């Protein structure tokens, strides 16, 4: 690392790891409930477990993005962070809000809208917190000597993510309009501005890890995020097929959302091409593995499994079934969980000065978690397709079908166990790095001390 203030990223990453671990616990609670083992129902009913599982996911990803920004922006802007103190305050406040929200969910206090469950007063605190973060990063950029495309795309993604949180706070008596604006957050985040964040981080990693010329990498970044918005904005229409909005959304949403995988396909080809072209052999191989893995798995989870149910005639039957959960898991994992793990794999040795990049542990973590997640996706797919056939096509009753597919949730739990082993290995490797250290400042990318230091 180049600047002492980058160290703050470590604490964002470490907090993200803790929330991630907790997310998995609640995932298991739901998996067991689906198999009929609902012993915790009285204390943690399914809706509580679900709100905790998905909110922790979003929280740890946001912490990962913030950590990534605190690590990347000072280096790209070529100056220390504007205020390290503000960064710490903002981290602690974010965690406090998150923990409060989770406690609230156990007390039946929430807003009751999928993914946006957090109680209204906490919404305002989230907004203030994110503004503090944006201010800190923005001031750093302005103070710095240079504006790179990478940092601008990353900043733009973070800025619009904050802006798009606001429509989710409008309330309506009409369920249809409520749902309409809920998607401005949920869809325009994951299929819009978050892709900018992902693209920005990926671009940074490719520049660092492959040594390909920045101009070339950044040119393609523009094209890919261009494709994202070209398809993703009107692609929002794929959520407006069947919620009481006009029929033209079937055409608009159908066409544009079918183009969305292009951006993910572009991302995958881009990453693979740059890695192949790159002359530099960076010793941190595992960071490159995570980066390429992210580009590929997002293409599968978001692109391929997304288009599989985005056509209106298909979505008529899959809408609101476990098929959606299948896609949701692999998409979130491939695109956003993996990019956060990739930047961690890259940054940890630089933050702490400990070069644990070629340990077998790190390789095992990558493969075990990815194979586990693929198995989980398969289990959700079989359960989902069976549900669609029996319930939506043959007209069997919901609960009767649920009993038929219980065994696929045993499969889900097995896949999830393998996945969890992978994540535990990743976390163990994370802990082995130790704390960030001032001695790591100035170490170049190869991890060897610069002459100035020795």
């Amino acid at each position: 690392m180049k600047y002492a203030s980058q160290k703050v990223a470590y604490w964002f990453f470490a907090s993200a790891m803790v929330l991630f671990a907790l997310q998995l616990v609640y995932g298991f609670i739901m998996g067991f409930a689906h198999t009929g083992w609902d012993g915790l129902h009285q204390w943690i009913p399914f809706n509580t477990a679900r709100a905790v599982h998905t909110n922790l996911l979003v929280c740890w990803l946001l912490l990962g993005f913030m950590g990534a920004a605190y690590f990347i922006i000072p280096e790209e802007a070529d100056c220390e962070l504007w205020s390290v103190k503000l960064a710490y305050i903002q981290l602690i406040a974010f965690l406090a809000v998150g923990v409060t929200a989770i406690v609230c969910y156990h007390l039946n206090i929430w807003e009751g809208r999928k993914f946006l469950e957090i109680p209204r007063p906490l919404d305002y605190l989230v907004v203030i917190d994110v503004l503090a973060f944006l201010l800190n990063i923005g001031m750093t950029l302005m103070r710095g000597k240079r504006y790179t495309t990478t940092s601008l795309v990353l900043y733009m993604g973070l800025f619009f993510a904050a802006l798009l949180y606001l429509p989710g706070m409008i309330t309506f008596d009409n369920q249809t309009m409520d749902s309409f604006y809920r998607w401005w957050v949920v869809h325009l985040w994951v299929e819009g501005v978050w892709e900018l964040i992902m693209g920005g981080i990926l671009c940074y990693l490719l520049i660092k890890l492959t040594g390909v010329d920045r101009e070339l990498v950044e040119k393609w970044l523009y094209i890919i995020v261009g494709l994202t918005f070209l398809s993703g904005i009107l692609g929002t229409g794929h959520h407006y097929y069947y919620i009481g909005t006009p029929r033209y959304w079937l055409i608009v949403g159908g066409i544009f959302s079918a183009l969305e995988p292009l951006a993910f396909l572009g991302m995958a080809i881009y990453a693979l091409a740059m890695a192949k072209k790159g002359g530099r052999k960076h010793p941190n191989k595992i960071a490159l593995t995570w980066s390429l893995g992210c580009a590929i798995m997002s293409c599968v989870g978001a692109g391929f499994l997304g288009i599989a149910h985005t056509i209106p005639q298909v979505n008529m039957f899959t809408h609101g079934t476990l098929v959606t959960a299948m896609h949701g898991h692999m998409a979130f994992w491939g695109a956003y969980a993996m990019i956060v793990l990739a930047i961690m794999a890259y940054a940890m040795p630089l933050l702490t000065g400990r070069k644990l990049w070629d340990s077998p542990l790190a390789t095992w973590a990558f493969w075990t978690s990815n194979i586990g997640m693929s198995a989980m996706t398969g289990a959700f797919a079989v359960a989902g397709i069976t549900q669609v056939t029996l319930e939506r096509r043959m007209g069997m009753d919901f609960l009767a079908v649920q009993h038929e597919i219980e065994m696929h949730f045993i499969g889900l739990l097995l896949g999830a166990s393998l996945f969890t082993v992978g994540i535990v290995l990743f976390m163990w490797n994370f802990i082995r790095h130790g704390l960030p250290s001032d001695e790591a400042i100035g170490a170049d990318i190869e991890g060897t001390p610069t002459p100035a230091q020795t």
Partner: protein
Amino acid sequence: MLSKSQAKIFFLGGTGVFSAAFLSLTIDTHRKVPAQTHAANITPQVAHGKRIWEDNNCMGCHTLFGEGAYYAPELTKVVERRGKPWLRMFLKNPEAMFPNDRKMVNYHFNDEQIENAIAFLEWCGNVDLNGFPAKPPLAAKMAASTTAPVVTTKPIPPIFDAMACTGCHSLGGKGGAAGVALGAPPLDDVYKRKNRAEIVAWVSDPPKVKPDTKMPKLPLSPEQVNEIADFLSSLGN
């Protein structure tokens, strides 16, 4: 090939154009949704029901308009599917209605809250969702390949709807949707398996006769039990 500045223009230009298109469609949607959703029917009762829906995060288990979680049934057409009497009884004590099965939280709603929640779901059921949920396309083919059950043609006394029997069981060819999962049989030919005294004992307290049954003990008076038993055993004559 594009230069970097051309790529930048592609990104910024595309974003501008498609954002503008999206905003214009949003404005048009605002204009059309009130008619499509019958917004005029959103009475204070419906609005109140929606708040009950949100305050308890019902969407954390169920889907509505196909949005939500996958642990409990889709509720858009639930009023049509189950009928109000069944829903009233169910919301009073959900677990009692599906004993030994997947559980729903008992929120201890009062009668007014239950009516509000049902009003909200009824409004949802009338929104024009462009054809969602589709009628199961294979259901007719399935029915054609199974033998037709005995169906009485006698008029059905109102008590069977009022006490929600027909929520789970079919009778006279109607009802029964809620009971398919539980294996609740049609009531038309019960007389073949049970005499009048056995019907009385069963209807009064099913778990007493068969502890692992999925049929709940319903709040029936002895007169109502007799009325039910009289009718069902009369079907054999």
